[in-house]
């Protein structure tokens, strides 16, 4: 199969067939006109030969559709560059040894789920003793002093504690993303840190189910971690990055 990566199309079962599945609701009553409206919507999106395979009356004047079509758009995959964390992931043992041998002093980490967000499971997975998916959390690392402030912590309080503890890294978790509240909250934290002249004194790291490293960079963070992150991923990053900064 000869794929032209500069002009990639979606794939069903034949190269460049453009196959794609879509589902949505329209606020119109079910019927032939609704089906036609769905088809027109698909055409506007650039789907050729749209075919409504399911139309369901949701009651109260709404209709749900499942639709297949052939997308005519192409993407130039060959030029895509995505910022990535560079250092390799180390194990619990490797990280601790590295810190002990190379850095020579314990790392202080302060973590919280801030704003109105009350979801602690994600940040606990990274920080608490117990850890996640069989990987110990940062609290268990002999070479890391980790402080987990819990959830619904105001951004200002997190920063205050970081200063107090002379933190090397601040970890912030954001799980609720409705109306982009996570973006607002993460931006607030960075701006606060900058205003207080703290931004360069510590690594600022965010995480959550809708966070990517790329997004984190965009928001002004040093790194971002998404779904499936394990404590040692974060520990590896922190240790290696601190070494880099300290030019070790």
């Amino acid at each position, binding site marked *: 199969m000869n794929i032209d990566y500069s002009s990639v199309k979606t794939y069903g079962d034949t190269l460049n067939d453009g196959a794609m599945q879509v*589902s*949505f*609701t329209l606020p119109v009553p079910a019927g032939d006109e609704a089906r036609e409206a769905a088809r027109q919507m698909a055409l506007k999106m650039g789907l050729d030969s749209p075919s409504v395979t399911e139309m*369901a009356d*949701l*009651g*109260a004047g*709404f209709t*749900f559709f499942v639709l297949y079509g052939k997308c005519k758009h192409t993407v130039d995959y060959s030029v895509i560059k995505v910022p990535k964390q560079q250092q390799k992931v180390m194990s619990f043992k490797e990280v601790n040894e590295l810190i002990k041998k190379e850095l020579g002093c314990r790392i202080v980490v302060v973590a919280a789920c801030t704003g*109105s967000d*009350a979801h*602690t*499971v994600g940040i*606990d997975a990274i920080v608490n003793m117990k850890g996640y998916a069989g990987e110990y959390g940062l609290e268990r690392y002999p070479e890391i002093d980790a402080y987990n402030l819990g959830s619904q912590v105001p951004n200002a309080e997190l920063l205050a504690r970081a200063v107090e503890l002379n933190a090397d890294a601040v970890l912030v978790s954001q799980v*609720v*993303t*409705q*109306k982009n*509240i996570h973006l607002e909250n993460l931006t607030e934290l960075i701006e606060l840190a900058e205003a207080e002249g703290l931004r360069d004194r510590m690594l600022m790291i965010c995480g959550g*189910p809708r966070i990517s490293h790329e997004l984190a960079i965009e928001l002004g963070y040093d790194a971002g971690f998404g*779904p499936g992150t394990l404590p040692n991923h974060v520990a590896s990053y922190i240790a290696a990055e601190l070494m880099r900064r300290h030019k070790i």
Partner: protein
Amino acid sequence: MIIPVDNKLNLDPGKVKLAREKAGKIADRLHAWIGDYTTTTTERAAARLMGIDGADESGVPMANVMVDELARSGILDHGLVPWLARSIVAREESPQEIAEALAAGSLKVESIPDCAEEKWREVADKLAGEAAAGIKAVKAERDRLKSKAAPPNKPMLYVIVATGNVYEDAVQAEAAALQGADIVAVIRHTGQSLLDYVPYGPTTEGFGGTYATQENFRIVRQALDRAAQKTGRYTNLVNYASGLCMPEISVMGAFERLDMMLNDAMYGILFRDINMKRTFIDQHFSRMINAYAGIIINTGEDNYLTTADAFDEGHTVIASQFINEQLALRSGLKEEQMGLGHAFEINPAMEDGLLMEIAQAQLCRELFPRSPLKYMPPTKHVTGDIFKTYLINGMFNLVSVLTGQEIQLLGMLTEAIHTPFISDRYLSIKNAAYVFNNAKHLGEEIIFREGGRIQERAVFLLNEACKMLQEIDEISLETAMEKGMFADIKRSRDGGKGGTGVIARHKDYYNPFFTIFMNDTKVEEGRLS
């Protein structure tokens, strides 16, 4: 609502009895002091029951204005009713007029003269009696509507709406009812549980949900009643009492014909960091109101499995259900009103996880045979792979019909992504309708191998729950929560929000509703442990 269940799990009745006894003792230990206190929201609830409604110019509810004034003048420990009744005697005004005068500053608490206890008691009891009759009328209306409606699905289909705009909520609630939902819950605005007042009026810009306000209750209730006329079915309305205003929201629910309410002090303590004392006191009065109003409560044990591992900590759910049952009985709730919570939250990647879910669900069913269990869907382990989520939700529905659950919170396709879309609810209802029908009598046909994995797991869970109850009986529920025995969360005995709202009762404390409600809702012989 009694579902006949055989002893499919080979449980030791002695163990079951033991668990209940220990839970009874744990509940008694709480009730040894609960009656010595009142709280600000308990008194505000009394105000609402006496007919006080509305808010002042700056949005402070009248009930708060009044209770704050009484607290300020140091007589809240007598309860709100005595002062209100005396004001009525003195001023020959309605409760609302008195509250407004107080809010306007034209009336001072201290200006009300004392009067013969007999006299104000008579006024108070009369007004309370009328309020209670009003609630009974609402209950009767519910009974009437339900009796003429087609029977609900079994298990009942429960969906949530969470738009943040009550008018949008109403449309979506109506659509859900038309799609076949038996129960619709309107999710609350994030953080409402920590407000020490109940917002007033309709909400159009909520975040993560819509405020529980009396007006919002009314708007959605009407939408569902409208749908009922088209469907010939009754759609139950749910909202949340848990938080800092448990009894007040229960009063609102009683007035506006809510049918179910989430009502769990332990949830508030663990997941909202609410002060233990405060919320156990609140819960008691709040559940009495629910009991009287014929409302089914939902407890929050399912939440434990979002922070703790569902396989490792399955027994904590069972232990908590026993405790919640005993507490609920002590507030006059019938078992038929106890939607004890549990959940399908074992990691779907676990080998034989489905067998473990069956064991837990069947165990709940057999331990609480008269209670309409509230079964929560997979949430924690579902992902953005919506197809897989849909499938796991189907397995959840299968376990539910197999084990005879009653209140089935439907899993949403987009659980891991965002609050439900209108189509997510539709798809979830279709999912459940297919599974419930296609496997309708599966529970009757299937027996578990003696000593097999399913029976073994259930027996293990019961044993562990017994041990845990024994330990809690020794150390007290408060200490157990300090030690993090539930949900992997530790809460200090005196910490948490709302502790300042707790007031030791004066020996002359009076609240006629306690008597009225408790007299009405006698718990059946032999049920209290």
